[in-house]
C-alpha cells in the first residue's frame, strides 16, 4: 500500500484549533521510519498532554522501534475542536510521526488506562474509520490490541478489541508482533490470526470467550472456544534491570502532565493495602539496583534535557537503596538546577528524611501523605499499616524541617465503615493541623495549609474487596455531610471526588461484557472525555444503561456472594482467589497482614504461579 501522508490536510486545520503543538510531531527523540515492513501505532485515548508522559507507551515505543523492520508511531485523541474540524473535512485519525491514517497500520495498540476513558476508545476507533466492534472488522483492517491497568477486567470494552494483553508488555509485545507477522506471511485469515494470537501467553482474544448469562442477565460462566486458555494469566518481567528503561524518551514541546524525566525505580508493591488494585496486580516487587538507577537517571537527563527527574513507582520510598540513590544523585546534580521528585511518601520518619534529601536547598512545595482512613480500626481493615503516631510524627518532622503545606488523602465508603470512622478523619485532620501549627514558628503560621482530599471507595477486581458493595449516592452524600461536620473549620481545604463519577467507575470496574452495549450507546449519545469534569454527564450514562437493559446499580452497589461467578475470573493477575478471600476475611476481623517483601511470604501465589521472585537491591528472594 502506498503510504498516505495527511500532513497537508492536517496543517490546514491548525490555525483554527487550540494548542496546535498537540498535533505537529517533530519532538526531540521521536522516531521516524516510514519504510518499515511492519508498522504499529500506539494510542493513548486522551489528549496529548495527558498521554504523552505515559511510561508504558514510552517503553513499548522504544522496544518496537528497536525490532528489525518494525516501526512504532504515536497517536493521541484530538480535542473536540480538532476532531470536529477533522470530521467536517474528512480527515481521519492520524499518527503523529508520519501523519499516516491510523487505519493503515498493521497494528493499533490502545491503552486502557482507567474506566473513564472507555468512551474515548470508541471515539478513537470511529475517528480512525475502524469498525467499533472486532466482529465487524475484515482482513483489510488493522489488528486492534488493548492493554494497561484496566485490562484486569477487560469485559466492558472487550468487544472493541481483537485482543487484549494482560500484564506487562516488555516481552509480550515482541511475541505479539512475531505472531502477527508470521500469520501475515502465511496468509492466515483474521480468525486464524486471532487464534494464533491467543496462543501467546498473556494475550486474551475476547472473540474466543462467550459469556453465558441467566434469564435475569446475571453472569453464569464463560464459555471458552476449544484451544483458547481457560484462564489468561498476566505477563510479568522477572528482572527490571534487564529491561531497557526509556532514557531517550520523547521530549514534548508543550506543557504536559508529568513534564519531567521519569524513571521507574521499582515495580509492584507488597504492602498489601486491600483496596489497592495496583498493589495486587503488579506483584511481585522488583527493584532496579542503585547502580542502574543512577546510570539511567544521568543518561535520561543528558538525552532529554529535562530539569527534573521523578523516581516513579507505586511506593518509591520503599526502595531498599533509596537513600543511597538520592545521595548519589544529589552529588551529581549539584549546581545544575536539576531537581528530583518523589511521587508519594511513606508515612514515617524515613519518608520525611527522603523528602528532605531531595529538597535540600531548594523549595519545599508541599508533602503528600495517604493515611486513607481516620481510625486505627478502619486502617487495620484495609491493611494500611500506618498509625496515628506515624502520621503525626511525620507531619511534625516535616513542619520542623520547613514545610508549610501538607496534603492528606482519605477514602470514605470502605467496607465496614461506620460514622465513627468518618468522624475519625475529621479528628485526625484536626490533630495534624495542631501538630503542624506547633511545629511552625508563630510568624510563619499564616502560610500553613492542610489540604484534605477525600475520594469514594470504588471496589476493584483482583482485590480482596472485589466482592463488596460500593455505597450508593444517598449514602455517599450522607457520609460526606458527616465528614464535613467533623472537619476543623480553620486552615483546612477540603476536596471531594464527585460521587457521580465514582459511580461510573464502579460500573465499569466490575461490569461484564453486556456493559459494552451501554458504553457504545453512551458514546453514540455524545459521551467522550468523561474524565474531564465539564464533559461528564451522569444522565447520559444512566439513559444508556436503561436503554440497554443494564442494572448498573446491581453492578456497582451490590455485595456478591463469595461463590458467585465473576465476569473477570478468566483473567488472572497472579494473586489467587484463595488469597483474596483470606485477605477479605482478615479485613472483616480487623487483622493486618505484613509486607511480604520484608516479612514472611503471605501466600498470595503470585510468585509461584508466575514463576518470578521478589527482587530487592539486585538479589532475588525465592
Amino acid at each position, binding site marked *: 500500500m502506498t503510504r498516505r501522508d495527511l500532513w497537508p490536510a492536517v496543517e490546514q486545520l491548525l490555525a483554527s484549533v487550540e494548542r496546535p503543538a498537540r498535533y505537529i510531531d*517533530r519532538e526531540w527523540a521521536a522516531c521516524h521510519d516510514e519504510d518499515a515492513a511492519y508498522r504499529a501505532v500506539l494510542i493513548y485515548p486522551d489528549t496529548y498532554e495527558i498521554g504523552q508522559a505515559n511510561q508504558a507507551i514510552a517503553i513499548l515505543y522504544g522496544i518496537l522501534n528497536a525490532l528489525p523492520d518494525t516501526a512504532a508511531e504515536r497517536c493521541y485523541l484530538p480535542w473536540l475542536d480538532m476532531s470536529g474540524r477533522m470530521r467536517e473535512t474528512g480527515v481521519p485519525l492520524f499518527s503523529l510521526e508520519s501523519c499516516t491514517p491510523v487505519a493503515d497500520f498493521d497494528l493499533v495498540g490502545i491503552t486502557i488506562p482507567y474506566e473513564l476513558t472507555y468512551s474515548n476508545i470508541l471515539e478513537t476507533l470511529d475517528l480512525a474509520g475502524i469498525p467499533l466492534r472486532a466482529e465487524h472488522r475484515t482482513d483489510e483492517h488493522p489488528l486492534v490490541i488493548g492493554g494497561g491497568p484496566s485490562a484486569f477486567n477487560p469485559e466492558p470494552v472487550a468487544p472493541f478489541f481483537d485482543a487484549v494483553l494482560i500484564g506487562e508488555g516488555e516481552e509480550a509485545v515482541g511475541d505479539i508482533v512475531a505472531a502477527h507477522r508470521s500469520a501475515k506471511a502465511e496468509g492466515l485469515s483474521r480468525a486464524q490470526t486471532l487464534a494464533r494470537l491467543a496462543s501467546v501467553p498473556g494475550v486474551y482474544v475476547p472473540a474466543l470467550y462467550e459469556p453465558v448469562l441467566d434469564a435475569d442477565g446475571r453472569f453464569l460462566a464463560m464459555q471458552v472456544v476449544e484451544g483458547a486458555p481457560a484462564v489468561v494469566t498476566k505477563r510479568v518481567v522477572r528482572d527490571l534491570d534487564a529491561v531497557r528503561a526509556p532514557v531517550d524518551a520523547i521530549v514534548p514541546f508543550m506543557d504536559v502532565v508529568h513534564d519531567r524525566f521519569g524513571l521507574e525505580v521499582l515495580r509492584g508493591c507488597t504492602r498489601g493495602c486491600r483496596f489497592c488494585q495496583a498493589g495486587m496486580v503488579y506483584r511481585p516487587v522488583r527493584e532496579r539496583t542503585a547502580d542502574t538507577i543512577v546510570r539511567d537517571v544521568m543518561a535520561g537527563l543528558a538525552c*532529554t534535557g*529535562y530539569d527534573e527527574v521523578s523516581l516513579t513507582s507505586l511506593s518509591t520510598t520503599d526502595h531498599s537503596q533509596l537513600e543511597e540513590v538520592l545521595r548519589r544523585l544529589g552529588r551529581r546534580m549539584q549546581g545544575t538546577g536539576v531537581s528530583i521528585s518523589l511521587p508519594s511518601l511513606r508515612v514515617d520518619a524515613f519518608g520525611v528524611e527522603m523528602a528532605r534529601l531531595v529538597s535540600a536547598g531548594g523549595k519545599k512545595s508541599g508533602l503528600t501523605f495517604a493515611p486513607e482512613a481516620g481510625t486505627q480500626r478502619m486502617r487495620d481493615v484495609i491493611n494500611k499499616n500506618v498509625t496515628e503516631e506515624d502520621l503525626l510524627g511525620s507531619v511534625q518532622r516535616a513542619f520542623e524541617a520547613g514545610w508549610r503545606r501538607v496534603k492528606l488523602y482519605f477514602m470514605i465508603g470502605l467496607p465496614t465503615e461506620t460514622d465513627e470512622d468518618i468522624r475519625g478523619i475529621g479528628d485526625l485532620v484536626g490533630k495534624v493541623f495542631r501538630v503542624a501549627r506547633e511545629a511552625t514558628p508563630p510568624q510563619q503560621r499564616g502560610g500553613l495549609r492542610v489540604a484534605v482530599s477525600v475520594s469514594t471507595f470504588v471496589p476493584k477486581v483482583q482485590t480482596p474487596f472485589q466482592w463488596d458493595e460500593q455505597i450508593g449516592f444517598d449514602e455517599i452524600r450522607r457520609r460526606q455531610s458527616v465528614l464535613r461536620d467533623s472537619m476543623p473549620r480553620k486552615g483546612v481545604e477540603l476536596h471531594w471526588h464527585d460521587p457521580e463519577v465514582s459511580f461510573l467507575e464502579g460500573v465499569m470496574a466490575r461490569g461484564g461484557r453486556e456493559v459494552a452495549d451501554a458504553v457504545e450507546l453512551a458514546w453514540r449519545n455524545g459521551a467522550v472525555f468523561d474524565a474531564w469534569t465539564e464533559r461528564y454527564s451522569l444522565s447520559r450514562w444512566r439513559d444508556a444503561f436503561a436503554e440497554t437493559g443494564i442494572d448498573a446499580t446491581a453492578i456497582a452497589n451490590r455485595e456478591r456472594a463469595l461463590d458467585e461467578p465473576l465476569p473477570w475470573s478468566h483473567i488472572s493477575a497472579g494473586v489467587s482467589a484463595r488469597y483474596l478471600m483470606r485477605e477479605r476475611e482478615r479485613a472483616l476481623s480487623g487483622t493486618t497482614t505484613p509486607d511480604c517483601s520484608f516479612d514472611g511470604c503471605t501466600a498470595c501465589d503470585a510468585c509461584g504461579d508466575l514463576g518470578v521472585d521478589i527482587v530487592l537491591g539486585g538479589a532475588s528472594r525465592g
Partner: protein
Amino acid sequence: MAEGEFRLRVAYRKGGRLRWLSHLEVIHTLERSIRRAGLSYAITHGFSPHMKAAFGPALPVGTAGENEYLDVWVTRYTSAQETLAALKASTPADMAPFAACYVAEKEPSLTAAITIAAYRCDVAGKESTTREVQAALDSVVSAGSLSVEHKGKTKVFDLARSLPKEVRVTDREDGCSVELTVRMGPQGSLRPELLVREALRAASLSAAVTHTTRTDTLIELDEGVWARPM
C-alpha cells in the same frame, strides 16, 4: 555579570511545523536543547534556581521566524563555534541555531534592544494580482490608522509610526508575498497578517494569508538605521 559568567548570544530560527509552537514552548524547547548540548549554563540564585537565559520578543503561534535570538550565560568559556555546533546537534531541526557569539554584559537586553521586526506574509491564490494586493495595502496604510480587536479589546495603531518602511508586495509562485516592517512598542505591536487581512477585506479581494514569517528582528541604532543584534 557574576564573575566567570559569559553572555552568549545565539541566533536560531523557528520554521516548518514548529511555527505552530507558542513562545513559552519555544523557550522550554531551547532550554532543554541547551541542557542536552551540555553547555555550562549559569544558574540564577533565587528561591527557585533555574537556567540564566533571556529571549527576544515573542512570536505568536503559527508565525515562523528566520532570525530569532536568545542570550544564555555560561560559566565556562568555550569557542562560540564549538558551542554552536553542540547546540545545533541537540535542537530539533526546525529550530536549529545558526550563529553564536559572545556579547558584552553592558549590552541592553534583547527585549529592550529589539524594536524593529521585518515580516513576510504569503498571500495565496492567483485570482488577485500582485498589483491589486499592493493597491489594497497602500489604501489601508494611507488611511493612517488601523483598529484591531484582540481578546475583546480594541487597539488603534498609528500606521505612520507602526510601519517605518514602505510595504512592498512581490510575486511568488502561488500568489504574492507582502513584505513589511513593524516598529514594536511597549503597548504591543501590530500583527502584520491582521493588516494584510484588513487590506484584502477592504478591497474585497478573495486571496488569503497562508503563512507569516518574521524575517528579521532588528535594533534601531539611530532613526532609520537598523542592525541585527549580532
